[in-house]
Each structure stands twice: as structure tokens, then as C-alpha cells.
């Protein structure tokens, strides 16, 4: 997670503050009622019910304002709140004429007027509404006090609340230019990161294709006996050069028709049979149809590389390919009983298993397991999920793309 976008941060902050103000307003009224109730319980002679009822319309109007949140509902709240504050102050003057407690209680009903009207996203408006709310409450309570001929009440808590709202507005809406600059840079980096990971995936796939084709042919030429070039090798060399120097060999593939997956797989196997490998296919190859095009390309190419490895390195002319469907993923196993190998002892410059099998299957969210040891054959198990997995693999195979790569 990288923070909140610059344009949304003030709104998230303002809306959270609005909710906090509403909670403070309701809490303040509840505290006033609890105080009255405690007073009534502690001193049975004091009648607090009539005074406590003054809070009810205010609470209702807070609900209305929270629901509608318009200027009209704010004005209505202030009007109803002002009347209720007067009503409450009259009751408190008569029933709880106890110095600071009276002032305290009056503050508790003025505080919602400061908070609810003042809740909003525009700083100047917040301060203005808070002042209007404070003045409304102050006027209402002053009238009640004057009616009773009582000494003036300072309403310290109400003053403090007003000061708090103003300082909150002053000090939390300031956003430094430096901070504002960083957030877009993060967005830019996130995008670059994505493009870079995608490119790394495409480059890795391109390398794997190059390995499977040109490097294989060059290797075959390097090992070829004196004399004319093998006709099959000459044919595939021509075909590959034509494809690789042409256009579109890395472009995303179109969605194939149903049944095409098994055919593609079958023709790949046939190519290896034509080269002299006795390949037995078992299991349900129609499971390959459920793979998306990108996963299918990956698994067909990876199996082809496994079969090429059997031909070149295993010292056997037979291999078995099994296809399994376990409802969530497709598993293909390539098994031979050749000479086997120790994977850790393979040279770092050998890209076959790493680039053409492991990384390739990893890029489509799949998993590869290899069981082999010198003298005991080799089993390669490739599992690819049916649902494309995005961003599930590590770099350089971290391409988070759903598009097909050929």
C-alpha cells in the first residue's frame, strides 16, 4: 500500500473528521443526559426529566442532518438546536443551580451546535458554521440565564471546543508542497514498476523462444557430422528464421477455437516423434482446452523443451507424457527412464530448464517440480491453474498480464 491519492486525501480526512464531529456531538448530548440522570438519582428532589427531554429534538435533528447533509438541514439543526439549548438551559437553571455544573451542562448542549454545523470539507466554511453554532448556543443560553436573573455562565467547555475546531482546521488542512509532490511520484513508480515487470516477462519469454529454436539449431549444427545438413534440421532452421525475423512472434495470441489446444499439443508431440522419440501420451488432453491461451502456449512450449531434453541428454528414445485435470489446474508430467541428472550440477549458462520450463511456467502462475538423479530417469511435473494468476510470481517472471504472449 502506498498511501492515498493526493486528490482523495483531503476528502478522506474531511469525511472522517465529519463523522468524528458527529460522534462528539452525540456524545456530548448523551453526557448531558447521563449527568442529569445521575443528579436526579443522587438528589431525589431534583426534577430532571423535563430538562433531559430537550436533548431529544437535538438528537433527532443531528440524525436528519447526517442523513441529508445540506445547508438547509444545517440551518434547521441550528434553529431547533438553539431552541433546545434555551429549553435545556432554562431547566438546568431551575433544577441544577450549582455553579460550575450549570455552566458545564450548558456547554454540553452548545458543543453539538459548534460541531455539527461546522462539519464539512471546506476549512473556511467549517470555521464559519462553528462560529454561527457557537453564537446560536451562546445566545440561547444567555436568554435563559437572563430570564432567570442568574449570574453569567462562562461556558468554558464551549469556548474550548470552538478553539479546538479552529485549530484543527488550521493545522490539519495544511499540506506541504513537498508531500503533494511525492504522491504523484509514487503513482508514476507504480506504473513504471508494472510496465517494467511486464517487459521483463516478455523478454524472458522471447529468450526462452530463442533458446528453444535458434540455440537448439546452432547446437545441432555445432555437433553435426561432416557432410550435407540433415534435411529436417534444414527445414526447421528455415522455418524458424522466417518466423523470428518476421513480425508478430511475440504478439498476443487470438482466442483459439474449441479443440485447438489438444491439436496444438498433438502436433508438438508429433514433431518430436518425427525426430525419433517414442512419445506415449496418456490422460485427458482435452483438459488443455480449459487453459487460457497464454497458459496453453507456456505449457506446450515447456513440454516441447522437456522432450527435446530427453532426446538430447537422457540417452533414451522413449518418453511418456501424461495430462491430468484436477478441476482447479492442469498438470502435465513428462517421464523418461534415461540417465537422469543432478539439477544443481547443471551449468549456470544452461538456460533450458530455467528459462524454457521453470520461468515460463512460473510466468503463468504455475509450478514445476523435478525428480531426477543420475541413473534413475527424470520426471518433470508442470501444474498450471485454469484461472490466470496475476502478479503471482517473482521477477523476472513478475509480469502481471492477462494478455497472451507468443
Amino acid at each position, binding site marked *: 500500500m502506498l498511501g492515498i491519492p493526493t486528490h482523495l486525501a483531503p476528502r478522506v480526512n474531511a469525511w472522517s473528521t465529519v463523522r*468524528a464531529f458527529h460522534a462528539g456531538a452525540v456524545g456530548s448530548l448523551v453526557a448531558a443526559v447521563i449527568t442529569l440522570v445521575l443528579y436526579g438519582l443522587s438528589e431525589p428532589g431534583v426534577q430532571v426529566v423535563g430538562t433531559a427531554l430537550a436533548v431529544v429534538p437535538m438528537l433527532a435533528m443531528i440524525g436528519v442532518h447526517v442523513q441529508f447533509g445540506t445547508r438547509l438541514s444545517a440551518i434547521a439543526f441550528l434553529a431547533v438546536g438553539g431552541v433546545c439549548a434555551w429549553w435545556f438551559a432554562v431547566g438546568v437553571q431551575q433544577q441544577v443551580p450549582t455553579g460550575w455544573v450549570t455552566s458545564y451542562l450548558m456547554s454540553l448542549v452548545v458543543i453539538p451546535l459548534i460541531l455539527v454545523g461546522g462539519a464539512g470539507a471546506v476549512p473556511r466554511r467549517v470555521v464559519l458554521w462553528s462560529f454561527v453554532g457557537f453564537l446560536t448556543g451562546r445566545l440561547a443560553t444567555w436568554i435563559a440565564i437572563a430570564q432567570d436573573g442568574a449570574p453569567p455562565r462562562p461556558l*468554558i467547555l464551549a469556548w474550548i471546543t470552538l478553539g*479546538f475546531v479552529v485549530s484543527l482546521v488550521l493545522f490539519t488542512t495544511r499540506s506541504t508542497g513537498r508531500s503533494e509532490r511525492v504522491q504523484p511520484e509514487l503513482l508514476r513508480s*507504480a506504473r513504471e514498476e*508494472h*510496465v517494467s515487470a511486464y*517487459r521483463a516477462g516478455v523478454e524472458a519469454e522471447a529468450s526462452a523462444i530463442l533458446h528453444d529454436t535458434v540455440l537448439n*539449431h546452432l547446437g545441432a549444427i555445432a555437433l553435426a557430422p*561432416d557432410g550435407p545438413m540433415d534435411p529436417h534440421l534444414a527445414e526447421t532452421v528455415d522455418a524458424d528464421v522466417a518466423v523470428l525475423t518476421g513480425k508478430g512472434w511475440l504478439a498476443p495470441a487470438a482466442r483459439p477455437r474449441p479443440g485447438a489446444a489438444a491439436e496444438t499439443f498433438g502436433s508438438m508431440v508429433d514433431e518430436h516423434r518425427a525426430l525419433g522419440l517414442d512419445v506415449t501420451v496418456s490422460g485427458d488432453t482435452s483438459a488443455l482446452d480449459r487453459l487460457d491461451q497464454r497458459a496453453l502456449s507456456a505449457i506446450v512450449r515447456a513440454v516441447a523443451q522437456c522432450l527435446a531434453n530427453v532426446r538430447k541428454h537422457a540417452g533414451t528414445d522413449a518418453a511418456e507424457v501424461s495430462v491430468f485435470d484436477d478441476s482447479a489446474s492442469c498438470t502435465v508430467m513428462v517421464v523418461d527412464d534415461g540417465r537422469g541428472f543432478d539439477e544443481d550440477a547443471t551449468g549456470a549458462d544452461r538456460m533450458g530448464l530455467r528459462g524454457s520450463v521453470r520461468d515460463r511456467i*512460473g510466468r503463468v502462475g504455475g509450478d514445476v517440480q523435478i525428480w531426477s538423479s543420475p541413473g534413475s530417469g527424470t520426471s518433470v511435473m508442470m501444474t498450471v491453474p485454469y484461472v490466470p494468476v496475476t502478479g503471482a510470481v517473482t521477477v523476472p517472471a513478475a509480469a502481471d498480464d492477462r494478455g497472451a504472449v507468443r
Partner: protein
Amino acid sequence: MTAVRPGRATRPRPRRTAQQYDPLGAMGSRPLVVVLGAGSVVWALLVSIFDRDVVGSPTLSALTVLLVAASAVVVFTASSPFRAPFPRWAFIAHVGLLGLASVASIAAQWGPDRSALNDFMSLLTATGIVMVASYRPWTDLTIGGLVLAAVNAVAWGAGAAEFPHEVPVAVAAFLAAAPTLVLTAAAAVFARTFAGLAERVQIRAGSYSVARAERDGIAASVQQDRSTILSRDVAPFFAELRTRDVITDADRARARAIADGIRASMVADADRTWFELAVRVDGGAAPLVDDPDGLIATLDTDQRTVVRTFVRAALRASTVDPAGFRTTVRRADAASGSASGPASGPASGPASPAGAPTPATPPARVEVVMELAVADSDIGIHRTFDPYFAVLRVTFPDLDVAVRPSALALRFSYDQH
């Protein structure tokens, strides 16, 4: 959060705070902490000196002011972007100090109190909770607020019971707790709402997607790169070979040479990390990245995005010499010992997404050290890089920033993914 600690997904996730969701916003609102903290100390001091109902104990009054000041210092220190996220112990210390101050203030003016106005602690405990609303989850705020409200209620209640006045004990106790209860509710609602909204609008590097047109462009560009090599080296060789009837020793040697060249370039491409590329793009000169095992590749997408942002900002800053940029990446457990041999295996690098069956081991820790030469004072370095440190610190909670005149060193670690 899973992005930061995927290896510990089975543990319940701690609630994130507003500071963790929006480190830059929390940094911007830190002045409020300063104002509230300083205001609390000044108020406590003025009331203690000029507005005493009873003479009481000036020593305890002084202690009260000191405790309030200490709590403000704790909050000020812990809310620094360099120490993000605001630790729980600091919050507990803050609440504890305020609770003690509350008790001390009552003890300092133990006697027949006639006015609540000088019992400032009932308000300071309330603002104390509001001060940290951006830095702790709502659950912590609620518990802390309830504790302070209870302390206030008991302290005031004890005073009212000992020195009865017109106000019933229950009312006095409740009124002492009320400001803290009300502001705690407000602070908790703020923290909870913020977290809920921020969770929805949070920037996630992983949520970006590369547009189809761009994907085609990238594929075409990569293909062009490869086709160039093929057209230059391979195609002419093959064409030449096809015109002849036989393969000679010279052809075999040339085939081997071309294959070795292509393979070497492919291995180098596969081993180059995103970080080296990112540094090279922005560096210009030849910055040094010492990462023999390619461990930097094991950062997750969000982490890479944050590091990339800092590297770009640093290398493009007018005061930074790209040639003086050094990055060292090592396994934390092997940092001091001899390097084990994973680098020698063909497919054992971090780039292998699917490994052969291996026993499950806890994720290894990787330590990154970045050093830069900056032609600026330490104040200037802070001015330029503080917002980046704030974001880095939230992503890498153990980030250590060492700023000296003309030099900047960052050290952080993460679980190898």
C-alpha cells in the same frame, strides 16, 4: 499488509492506523500534535500557578506539569515520520503519564474544591487521546480513553467524597470523565472511519494494469531487439549454410561462437535485476549496486515501487552526485558470515518462481543499505527527502536513516518473498 509480511499471514493482522494508510497526511498534520502538546503544558502551568482553589502541594503541581510535558514529548517523538508507525509502547506511556498527571493534579490541590475550572487534567486527558487519533487504531484509542476516564472519575470522585460540596459524588466523578469519554468516542470514530475509507482508496501498485496497446508496444519493441540480433548474426549464417552442401569445421565453430554469444547475453539479461535497471535509467553515471545473489528481486511490487520512487528522487536531486550512490544487498543472517553457495546453482537464484521440492523454511531476511553523497546540509537533506522517508518507513518499519552533512545512509530489511 500482506504485501509486507506474507510469511506471517496466519497471525491476526494488526489494525492499520491513519498514519500507516496515509504517511504523508500524518506528516502534514503533525503540527496539530505540537500545538496541542505545547498548549497542554502551558495551560497546566498557568492554571497551576495562577488559579489554585487550595494551596495544596506546589511540588505535586510541578510534578503534574512535568508529567504532562513528558507525555507531550513522548507523543512528539513517537509521531516523527522517522519512527513511524507510532508504537504501542509510546501510546501506553502517553496514557500512563497522563493518568499519573491526573492523579497528581488532584493530590496537588487536595481540599474543598469549589470550582472544576482549575481541574485541567480532565480536559488534558481528553485532548491527549485526540492528539494520537491519527497514530493508533480505534481499539487502542478506545481502551486508552476508557482507562483515562476511569482514572479521572476515581480521582475526582475520591475528592468529592472526602470534601463534600454541593455536587453529588457520582455527578462529580462522571463530569470528570465526560470530556475524555466524548473525545475518545470522536477520536475512535475518526480512526475507524479513516481506516475504512483509506482501505478503499489506497494506492496499490498491484492494481495497475498495462493497457493492451502498451502490451503490444512492449512486445513489438522486445521482438525488434531480438530480431536485430537474429538478422545481424544468425540469419546470414543460416542463409550461407543453406547455399552450401556440406557443414565444415569452420561452420561448427561459428555456430558454437554465435550460440555462446547469444546464451551469454541471455544469461546476463536474466540475471540483471529490476533495481539495476531502475538505477541505470535514472543514474546517468555508473552507480554501484552490490547484490551478488540478486536478492533485491525478492521485494514485492509495493516495496519496489517505494524504493524506485526514492531512488529516482535521490538520483535526480540536484544535490546528489549519482556517482556517489552505493547499494549493498545481503541476507541478514549471512551479512556477517561467509556467503553460502546458492549463487552457484543454475536455477537456484531468486528468480526461480517454481522450485524443486524443498523443505519449507521461514522466509529469509534481506538487508539493504543505500548510501548517497549529498552536497547539502543535514537540514537541507531532511527538507528534500523527509516525505520519502515517511513513505519508506511505513513500508519498511525498521528503516534507519542516518543523515550527516553531505551524506545520507538508509538501512532497512524485509522478508525475502
